[in-house]
C-alpha cells in the first residue's frame, strides 16, 4: 500500500500520478499496479515515468476499467504497486535518440534522465509524436539536447536515423515497425519497449508470450525492452 501524492490530468485522458515511497527501478522497467480489491482480477502494468527520492511517478492514458479507476484516485488515497519488473533499457552511450509515440513517452523520461548522467553520452535527442496535443514538453525539453515534437503526423519521418548509434523507442506497433524499416542498412541499433497484456508481470504465467527470432519470449521478464532485430524484421 502506498499513498498518492498527486494525480493530475495533463491532457484529455492523460494523467500523471505521483506516489509516495522509496521505490526501486531503472528506466524501462514497470510496476504492476492496482487500486482495487479482487475485481478486476489483474493489476495493470505501467512504466516508471520518473523516480525521485521519496516518490515515483507514472504517466498513463485512460483506456478501460483499470485506468479509469486510477484516474479517479485522489491524493491521500491508496494504491498498490508491485515491482519493479522487466529488464529495462540498456545503458547506451554515444549518439542516442529517444523516440516515443503517444503514451510511448512514458518510459522515455526516466530513460533520458538516466542517460544524461552517463559518461560517454555524446548527444541525446528526443522525438515525440502526439495525435492531438503535446504534453510534458517542458520536462522533456530540460533533458533533451534537441526536442522534436510532431502532432498529427508520423514522428518516424522526422528522424534521420543515421545520426545515431542507438535509438530507444516506445509507442504504437506501427510506429515501431516503421522505425525498424527505416533503420534497415543503417548502423543505428534500435531498442524497443513493447506492450502485451500481462497477468503476473514476472514470468510465471506465460500470458505475455511473444514470438521472436529467438523463439518464444516473455515480454514481462525477458523484456519489455528488446533489440528491434529480435522482434521485427530489420
Amino acid at each position, binding site marked *: 500500500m502506498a499513498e498518492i501524492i498527486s494525480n493530475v490530468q495533463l491532457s484529455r485522458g492523460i494523467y500523471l500520478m505521483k506516489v509516495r515511497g522509496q521505490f526501486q527501478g531503472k528506466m524501462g522497467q514497470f510496476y504492476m499496479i492496482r487500486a482495487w480489491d479482487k475485481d478486476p*482480477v489483474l493489476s495493470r502494468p505501467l512504466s516508471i515515468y520518473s523516480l525521485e527520492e521519496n516518490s515515483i511517478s507514472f504517466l498513463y492514458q485512460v483506456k478501460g476499467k483499470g485506468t479509469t479507476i486510477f484516474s479517479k484516485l485522489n491524493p491521500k488515497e491508496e494504491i498498490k504497486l508491485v515491482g519493479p519488473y522487466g529488464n529495462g533499457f540498456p545503458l547506451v552511450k554515444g549518439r542516442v535518440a529517444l523516440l516515443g509515440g503517444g503514451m510511448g513517452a512514458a518510459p522515455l523520461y526516466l530513460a533520458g534522465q538516466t542517460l544524461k548522467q552517463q559518461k560517454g553520452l555524446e548527444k541525446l535527442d528526443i522525438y515525440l509524436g502526439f495525435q492531438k496535443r503535446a504534453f510534458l514538453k517542458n520536462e522533456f525539453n530540460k533533458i533533451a539536447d534537441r526536442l522534436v515534437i510532431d502532432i498529427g503526423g508520423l514522428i518516424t519521418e522526422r528522424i534521420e536515423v543515421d545520426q545515431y548509434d542507438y535509438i530507444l523507442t516506445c509507442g504504437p506497433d506501427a510506429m515501431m515497425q516503421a522505425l525498424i524499416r527505416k533503420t534497415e542498412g543503417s548502423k543505428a541499433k534500435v531498442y524497443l519497449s513493447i506492450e502485451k497484456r500481462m497477468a503476473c508481470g*514476472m*514470468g510465471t504465467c506465460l500470458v505475455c508470450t511473444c514470438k521472436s527470432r529467438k523463439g518464444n519470449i516473455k515480454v514481462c521478464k525477458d523484456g519489455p525492452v528488446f533489440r528491434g532485430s529480435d522482434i521485427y524484421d530489420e
Partner: protein
Amino acid sequence: MMNKFNDQLRVDFAGVNFKNPIILSSGTAGFGQELNDVYNIELLGGLSTKGLTLRQRSGNVGTRIWETPAGIMNSIGLENPGIRKFIEQELDFLEKIDLVNIVNIGGSTLEDYIETVKIVSELKVDMIELNISCPNLKKGGMSFGIKAKTAAKITREIRKITDLPLVVKLSPQARNISEVALACQGAGADGLSLVNTFKAMAIDIEAKKPVFENIYAGLSGPAIKPIALRMVHEVCQAVEIPVMGVGGISSWQDAVEYIMAGASLVQIGTANFINPRAGLEILKGLNNYFEKNKIESINQIRGII
C-alpha cells in the same frame, strides 16, 4: 526443514509430508524461481510446476488472457519448455529448495504422457500431478478427464510405470466428477486435485469473433470458487484418497472452507496474480486461525461438513 509457522499445520498426503497445506498451483507459479524472488517460497507446503509435456510446446496463438467479473480466462495452451529442458534449466532449483515439488504433466496422447512420466520417475521429485483436465488443447488434455473410463485408463497406465506418489487433476467438465474421482482411485491414484479451469467463452462483439483462437478457454479465479468448492465436497464424500482443493482461493477463509469441505491441501492459483504474496498471506492467516482456535491438526477441521 525451516518452518516459522505452526507445526500443527503439517499434512501427510499420500505418504508425503507437507509443512502446511498451501501449494502454489500449476501454471500460476512457473517453476518457482520468480516468486521466490518476492518471498521465501520454502515457507509454503508445496509447488506444482507449470504443466510439462514430452516435447517443448509454444502454446496457443492469439489472445491468451481475458478478464471476466471476478475471474480470468486463459488460453496458454500448455506452453512449456518440454520435459528435457525442464530438467536442464529448472530442476536444480526445485531440488534445492525445501518444499514439496509436484511435477504437473500434460499431454495430447497417452503415449506422450507415458514417455514423460517415465522420464520424470527417474528424477528427484516428490510427486506427480497428472493433468487430464486442461481445456486449452485441441487434442488430449481435458478429454481424458471427462469420462470415468478414459480417466481410469490413463491413470492405470501411468500407475504401472511410476512409483512416485500420483495425484490426478480432475476437470470440472467431468460428466460426473465423483465417478471420475472414484475411477481414478480404483486405477491407483494416490490422491486427487480439483478443479482445473472451467471451459468458458467470451466474444468480441466488435470483431464479431470469439476472443480466443480456440473459441473456448479456461475460467479461474474467485468467480468459480462456489462451484469448485461444491465439487471438492462431493468428491471428498465419494473417495478415500486425499484431495487437494483448487479453485478461486484468494483468502485464508477460502482455504478453511476447502479444508472443512474435505480437502487435505489447497492450491493457490489465480490469486498469485492478484497479489504475488497471496500464498504466504493465506498461510499466515491459516496459521493465526489454527492458533486462535487451538486447532491441533488439520484433521480436526478437515471434512467436518
